[in-house]
């Protein structure tokens, strides 16, 4: 991509934002976001990522986007994975080993059933919610 002008930048921002929104509105897309900070990787996030890839391929799931992101902050529960999809609450899973990754695909994504024992939450949320009031 060549250098951007101010207009290009703004256009890109709008388009990308709409794209993301559309992606959410369009009931087909599932997002799996793997926390790939140093602590995540140290805890095996790379294996988790490969396990997701393999599992998705095995089941022929093409409507799932697998992405990486930085640390989610839940270092005691690494590797952590956030799953966003329509009809399901957005959930952060912790201690996602390759085996758990398989379960998430089969259970959460294919059967819309949460995976027991691995649901975590943003720890700061509740306390900060109180602050905000």
């Amino acid at each position: 991509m060549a250098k951007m002008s101010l207009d290009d930048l703004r256009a890109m921002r709008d388009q990308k934002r709409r794209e993301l929104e559309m992606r959410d509105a369009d009931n087909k897309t599932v997002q799996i976001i793997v926390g790939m900070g140093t602590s995540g990787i140290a805890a095996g996030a790379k294996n988790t990522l490969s396990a997701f890839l393999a599992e998705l391929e095995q089941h022929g799931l093409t409507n799932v986007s697998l992405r990486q992101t930085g640390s989610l902050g839940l270092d005691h529960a690494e590797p952590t994975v956030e799953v966003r999809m329509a009809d399901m609450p957005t959930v952060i899973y912790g201690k996602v080993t390759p085996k758990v990754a398989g379960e998430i695909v089969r259970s959460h994504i294919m059967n819309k059933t949460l995976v027991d024992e691995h649901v975590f939450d943003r720890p700061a949320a509740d306390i900060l919610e109180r602050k905000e009031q």
Partner: protein
Amino acid sequence: MAYQHYILVCGGTGCESNKADAIYRALQRETETHDLTHAVQVVKTGCFGFCAQGPIVKILPEESFYVEVTPEDAAELISEHIVKGRPVTRLLYKEEQSKEHARVDDISFYQKQFRVVLRNCGFIDPEEISEYISREGYVALERVLFDLSPQDVISELKTSGLRGRGGAGFPTWMKWNFTREQTSDQKYVVCNADEGDPGAYMDRSILEGDPHSVLEAMAICGRTIGANKGFIYIRAEYPLAIGRLERAIAQATEFGLLGKDILGSGFDFEIEIRLGAGAFVCGEETALLASIEGERGMPRPRPPFPSVKGLWGEPTVINNVETLANIPVILTRGGEWFAKIGTEKSKGTKVFALTGKIANSGLVEVPMGTPLRDIIFNIGGGIPDGKAFKAVQTGGPSGGVITAEHLDTPIDYEHLQELGSIMGSGGMIVMDESDCMIDVTKFYLEFTVEESCGKCAPCRVGGRKLHDILTKISKGQGTQEDIDTMRQIGTAMQRASLCGLGQTAPNPILSTLRYFKAEYDAHIDQGVCPAGKCKELVHFSIITDKCIGCGLCARRCPVLCISGERRQPHEIDQSKCIKCGECFTACKFDAVLRA
């Protein structure tokens, strides 16, 4: 949705010990009784981090947050909330009670409001610039390039009240303004990413999760102060962060958000990464500059301050990663918005790296002024294994301890200083009753002695002496005179050391002397380590009356110094014992005496 409701039962240690498992089973039973298994999924989760209010049950999608739930409440939760759709008000978290429904939106709303620094971490793909751009990325730079004058930027920062997140909390606007006021053809912006406090990794996570926020801030700084060259000084042991930064710089340059004539504004700014070899002292700004210049990383006297004479003698702004990550948001949302967060003198949020004896170790970002208790017991989930909280060390090796009596202190620059500690970069190491304060203090001194650059005498020699005296005390060979000597050396170090490392190195000692003098006295006067940590002062023996001869301790002993006939009282060979404490922990009959 496959199920109509998801019931999340917290399965963290704290809740588990309060019958969370029984609640889980009761909820499942009730679901079956009401024939709702097709509509409701009951799930046991990891810790919610709100252990003080546990056991916790959360019902989705309503996001209803029930606290202090008992197994007996299960029936009501199912029959009322699930079947009839009426929240069980008496169990709702008390500040939620006023609301009809706690909405998911509230939480995401909050997240936009309060995850200021970590706003994008764990959300966007850090290797894809367009994701950053879609989240208001480079909007602030746009404004700075086309709408705001340098003076406007400074006053916005002044309004925001942002202070440096790397240590002493110097107002960021002043730093920028001093540098802006200097007349020079060449100025520099330096990002201090030499995070070195033991247990701290806020900056690493920001760079790994949201590198563009730092790049954008540096360009904004460059525009404001009149610099077109920036350096990021980062330790080589952060390979992932370095890789992400390199990629981010390349993408930003490709997009024309760095480099020549940014967005056609005529402003040039480029950023170079400089790798440090990991010396702690290189986080000190003048040593950092020396290191970038290719010199041995040793501090230089101040004044002159870097804002006047910095990198290669030119006016330089040095900000740490977290400080910079705040800048784009401040300029997008306004200084006033930022100033609403936090306390009177400490604005915004602070990211802490919570480690040590804590259930949920991790990164937390809270508004300044949040009480320590909330951070440790609610977010952090408290102390594991049912142990009692003893103290928390903030500010790393330059800081001090905060004890149980001060748990309700709002955490900001002023309060921490009052308590004899500092904010530092945001490391928080939690200690429990099994930690010996002399041992902990010795660890910190060991660190500063190891990391002293060796340039100035007070730090180089004083640190070693303090460490030696602590070692003596931990062996039960100390005297009360040693305490005076430590205070005197400590004062000389604080007053005569060249840089912050030496000036603050005695802080852990002075702080523990303030709050845990009795523990020093126990080591000195009675030759006892109350926590049982100082090996030279601990002695393990087997109480014959209590020992049933199960042999567990003997199997656990790593040096095989416990012997005895089966079903007969065992014995510890003191000459071989390494005082690891394995037998003490292993014994189920309290038959091992630690004295």
